């Protein structure tokens, strides 16, 4: 297997571990991976967030550049890349919407960025919400609207979880598109709320 033929930059031995050489314990040159592989997670939507956070902190404890101040340039470089990968992967996995996006890309090579959305019903629904947001005048209404959006997001996350379980990925992709729109409305809304 190709993966097993990676050798340690320091001692030259074969390395199986992702981060450290089993022989000389040195930090290893980062190799390509997706966020799920980085945290040794199965390709499933439902993940244990608390465990993910604990794993994230554990790995950062070992890999963060602060732990390599006295190390050589190679090790410093690798630590920076590993630590950066961890940060990015962790935040992508914590957010259910970006997590769904990554899963779809891995499982069915579906990338929302490369698609044009032509689901008329969805677009109409989103347009209505946008309009509602634009017309917010009072803080009280804003709060109600915000709760509504949060409720919609929560419902869709439950649905997408089921679709992933049923391995109905095309349907999951559809919901992911909707969630992406809803998230954008939520974020834009935060800006509006500061103004109110």
């Amino acid at each position, binding site marked *: 297997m190709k993966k097993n033929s990676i050798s340690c*930059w*320091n*001692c*030259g*031995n074969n390395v199986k571990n992702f981060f450290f050489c089993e*022989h*000389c314990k040195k930090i290893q040159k980062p190799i390509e991976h997706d966020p799920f592989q980085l945290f040794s997670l199965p390709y499933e939507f439902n993940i244990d967030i608390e465990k993910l956070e604990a794993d994230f902190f554990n790995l950062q404890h070992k890999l963060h550049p602060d732990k390599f101040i006295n190390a050589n*340039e*190679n090790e410093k470089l690798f630590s920076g890349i590993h630590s950066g990968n961890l940060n990015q992967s962790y935040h992508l996995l914590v957010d259910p919407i970006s997590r769904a996006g990554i899963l779809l890309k891995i499982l069915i090579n579906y990338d929302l960025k490369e698609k044009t959305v032509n689901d008329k019903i969805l677009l109409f629904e989103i347009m209505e919400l946008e309009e509602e947001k634009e017309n917010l005048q009072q803080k009280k209404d804003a709060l109600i609207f915000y709760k509504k959006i949060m409720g919609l997001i929560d419902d869709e996350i439950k649905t997408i979880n089921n679709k992933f379980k049923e391995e109905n990925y095309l349907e999951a992709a559809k919901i992911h598109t909707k969630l992406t729109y809803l998230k954008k409305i939520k974020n834009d809304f935060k800006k509006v709320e500061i103004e109110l």
Partner: protein
Amino acid sequence: MITLTEGAEKQVSKLLENRGKVSKGIRIGVTTKGCSGLSYSLEFVDDIQNSDEKVSFRDFTLFIDPKATFFLIGTQIDYVEDELQSGFKFSNPNEKGRCGCGESFHI
């Protein structure tokens, strides 16, 4: 005064090549450390110190800290690799004892 086994010589060449920057060679020193008092150190060389002893090999130069020469006379360096670990092994006829941790020795 010091010998390298073929495996050790090969491994040093390989590591020098993989270091990512041009090195002047490698250097053996002796530092005070460990539970028996003295310990070898092995380093890449960027700046040559004139007081160092030089031993030339096919692909590289080995520098020896003058403080270390006394302890190193007759030493053979080998490269060992097994399932658990790999690295350079110093066999020193001058050594009288080795400490438990294997890190240091006394004469």
